[in-house]
Structures are given as C-alpha cells and as structure tokens.
C-alpha cells in the first residue's frame, strides 16, 4: 500500500515561489542563489530563504564550487511525490471504474 512522502516535502512544494525555483533548477542542472534571483522575479533574500526550505526538505542540495555555492535538485523526494500522486490517483481510477460498473449493471 502507499505511504505519503514526508510532510516536509509537501510543505516545501506548497509554495508557488519554491515551485518556481524547482522549475528553474529542473531546466538548469545547477544554479547559484544569485543566478536564481537574476533570472526569476524573486528577491535574493527570498531565494536564500526558499532554498533553505527546499534543502531541509531534501529537495535540493548545495555544493561549493570555488567561491560559489551551487544548488541542484535531488531526485528522490520528488520522485516519491510523483509516485504518490500516480499511485493514489491510479487507485481511485480503478475504484471508480468498478463503482461505475456496479451502478451500470444494476440499471436504473
């Protein structure tokens, strides 16, 4: 049966700015906080705050490269979230299909 991914992941993904950061990081392998702030309509300060939340949820990790700190997406929690949506949605598709068949068989 299904387990939901951790609450931290849901919390992290519930915010539209954080989803925007994830969307950006999914298109660019890595980015610095400055690059994110330049390319997105988000202040440098907000980028830093949201990157911290994402890091705590295990959705991004950081590496120091020379003088820069570069962030990248870490796949597992996102994959789990996708798996949760697919699995729970698939269960309901099956249940509702059986329900429809029961009601159709009965006629009205």
């Amino acid at each position, binding site marked *: *049966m299904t*387990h*939901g*991914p951790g*609450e931290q992941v*849901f*919390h992290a*993904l*519930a915010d*539209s700015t954080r*989803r925007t950061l*994830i*969307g950006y*990081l*999914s*298109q660019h*392998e*890595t980015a610095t906080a400055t690059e994110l702030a330049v390319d997105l309509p988000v202040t440098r300060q907000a980028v830093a705050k949201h990157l911290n939340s994402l890091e705590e949820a295990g959705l991004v990790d950081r*590496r120091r*490269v020379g003088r820069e700190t*570069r962030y*990248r*997406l870490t*796949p597992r929690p*996102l*994959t789990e*979230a*996708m798996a*949760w*949506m697919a699995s*729970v*949605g698939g269960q*309901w*598709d099956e*249940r*509702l299909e*059986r*329900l*429809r*068949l*029961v*009601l*159709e068989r*009965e*006629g*009205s």
Partner: protein
Amino acid sequence: MTVRREVFLPGDAERVWEVLTSAERLAEWFACEVELEARPGGEGIFRWGDGSVRHAIVEAVEPVQRFAFLWFEAGEEAAATRVELELEETEEGTRVAVTESAPDGLRASAAGEWSWGLTLLAALPRLHAPARVT
C-alpha cells in the same frame, strides 16, 4: 498535495450516496470486507483479498452531498490522508468528485495543483539524468 478525480454515475444522488457510504455496498466495489459507521467520529475497517487493511475515521457526513474521512494503515494514523467525496445530482445522473489530500492538509488551489503537476513533469527527464556539477 492533493489527488482529485471526478466520475459521472448513473442514478440519483440518493442511490449513489448509498453505494459510497453503506458497508454492504462498499464491499461490492471498494474492498472485500467493509465495516463502517457512517457518522462523524465513526470508525471503518476495509480489508482486501491480498491481506491489506485500511482504517477510516469519519469526519463529515452530509447525506447525499458530502462524505469525508481520514484514511490510514493500522498504527499509522499520523500519516493519514483525508478523503472527501462530493456528490452533485444532475438531470442525467450524479457527478462524484473524490479528493485525497496528503497528511498536513495542504490544499493548494486547483490552478496551483495543476502548475505543480506540470513542474514535476517538466522536472522528470532531468531527475533521471545523472547530475553533473562543474
């Protein structure tokens, strides 16, 4: 995070309500064995042929309109999801919307859910590629 499905069923809302909330009827399509007290605070146990078991605690019962319950595996109430069934009778039958929400009850707007789904989909190819840090 929320998963939502809608289905259009033959029959009026009263008939559909019964199939959604009576233990006997639920055993016809939802699980093999069902015990359920359809009242707020009532408990339910759902068993399947493969040995899996799920528990429910009823939150809301508004006859022929809305039925909501917490949904979890034994001993994992803290990780319960919340399931909500909403019925809407039309001239041709009854529309049922099912919403299952993740533990902390975060319920983004429909638009937010959609764009989030797109974000995740967009992220997928990247996630399966080995990350290079240069």
